[in-house]
């Protein structure tokens, strides 16, 4: 397991850095046909907090993120940003504006193949936010240097590894200066040896105080990253904990115990 190599020494795992609610979902419902994927999800994310959502495949984790960012129409409930309803009943702002305040990185590689690395990261700040090109370039240089890919600025995505693509996708989302970042199983499509380089970037961003909601199957990463952890199952929040270590070592619900049991074999192999 590569995520065992994560440097968690700087991570403050004591408590969430509470300084106001940035993102909130109230009674969020999403159905696909007759299948209710999310059934009344209440989620609160505070500024600077890293919330990790885990759960079995098909439990609605990705759908939750897609609803938050506005890629899915809600069938009930609301999404609020800084107390303002941005999606669902009584939404006061357009979804396009919401998307600029919430950054998202997908599971599959989503860089634009017709743009260079710089083209990818600068496109939206220039064309959507209409920001000054010099300032955008300076920010792009700073962020690309931070992830060690400034020398790749003029190449096209097809020449990059999966890990490099995902790191650049993270930078592209950060370039919009979002209030919240959503990460949807961003290492699921990566070779194991590339997982670490991507997760390390996320951990560093969390250490830097970036507010984020992370969906992942990497349990060690989840434990290292989370200020709060949420177990989702069949569209419901089954267990929520502000003490990730306790969640993993002593879960409170039977469902959480069953879910985590599947990872015990993995852990026991690591400890051998």
């Amino acid at each position, binding site marked *: 397991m590569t995520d065992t190599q994560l440097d968690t020494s700087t991570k403050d795992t004591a408590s969430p850095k509470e300084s106001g609610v940035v993102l909130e979902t109230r009674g969020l419902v999403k159905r696909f046909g007759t299948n209710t994927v999310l059934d009344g999800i209440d989620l609160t994310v505070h500024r600077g907090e890293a919330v990790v959502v885990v759960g079995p495949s098909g439990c609605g984790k990705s759908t939750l993120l897609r609803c938050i960012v506005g890629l899915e129409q809600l069938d009930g409930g609301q999404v609020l940003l800084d107390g303002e309803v941005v999606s669902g009943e009584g939404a006061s702002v357009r979804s396009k504006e919401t998307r600029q305040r919430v950054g998202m990185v997908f599971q599959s590689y989503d860089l634009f193949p017709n743009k260079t690395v710089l083209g990818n990261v600068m496109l939206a700040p220039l*064309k959507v936010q209409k920001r000054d090109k010099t300032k955008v370039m300076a920010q792009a240089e700073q962020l690309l240097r931070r992830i060690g890919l400034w020398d790749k600025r003029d190449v096209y995505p097809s020449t990059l590894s999966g890990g490099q693509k995902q790191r650049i996708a993270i930078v592209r989302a950060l370039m*919009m200066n979002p209030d919240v970042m959503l990460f949807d199983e961003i290492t699921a499509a990566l070779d194991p040896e590339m997982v670490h380089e991507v997760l390390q970037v996320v951990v560093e961003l969390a250490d830097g105080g970036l507010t984020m909601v992370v969906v992942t199957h990497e349990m060690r990463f989840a434990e290292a990253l989370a200020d709060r952890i949420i177990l989702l199952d069949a569209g419901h929040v089954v267990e929520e904990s502000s003490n990730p270590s306790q969640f993993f070592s002593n879960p409170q619900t039977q469902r959480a115990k069953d879910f985590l049991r599947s990872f015990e074999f993995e852990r026991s192999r690591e400890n051998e």
Partner: protein
Amino acid sequence: MDGGAIAAGIPFFGTLDWDFIAENTPVFIEAAGVTLNISFWGIVFSLLLGLVCAMILELRIPVARQITLAYIEISRGTPLLIQLFLIFFGLPKLGIRWSPELSAIIGLTFLGGSYMCEAIRAGLESVGSIQYESAQVLGMGRLQTMRFIVIPQAISTSLPGIVANVIFLIKESSVVSGIALADLMYQAKDLIGMTYDTAETLLLLVITYAVILLPISIIGTILERRFDYARR
């Protein structure tokens, strides 16, 4: 030793009347101008019509979509010669009279539009939904997404089909001789009828078409490489 003398030493070429070829080359150059003129405008309007049809199908615009689908089937399912006859000989019965040049351009556009539509549509459909979603997440609107993300990627996929259609339409333009337009094919048939120098005339015809089409093929290959983002 000139080229004609060298060619005269090769079997088949040795039997040709090189003076006839030299004498009639200007006729073919002039006819090539006619072929190029109608082909150029036919291709330009085919691309425009194809783009409009592809957008109608992609956006699933009611009624317009059904009309477009019917047009594609009729356009692809009938020979260009018949289409030209209908335009040039049939429409005057309804009071619509167009010159042979305009009829040829409209005929090529009617045929080419459906082929261009399918090539462009294949390109648009090749762009994955994740690209649209990524653009949406970055706050890009529909037009920005099409302009900066989807169309450039669609061109990459469509280009081989579009280039093939361009070559197809130029070759297919030979049919316009059927409505008395003095293009390459018309001049070739005229010369054969007058002189019976079939081999020389067809050689001139083949060479002229090759001189027109080979550069287009090469330019097409260069453009395909230019837009092939996957190989960069």
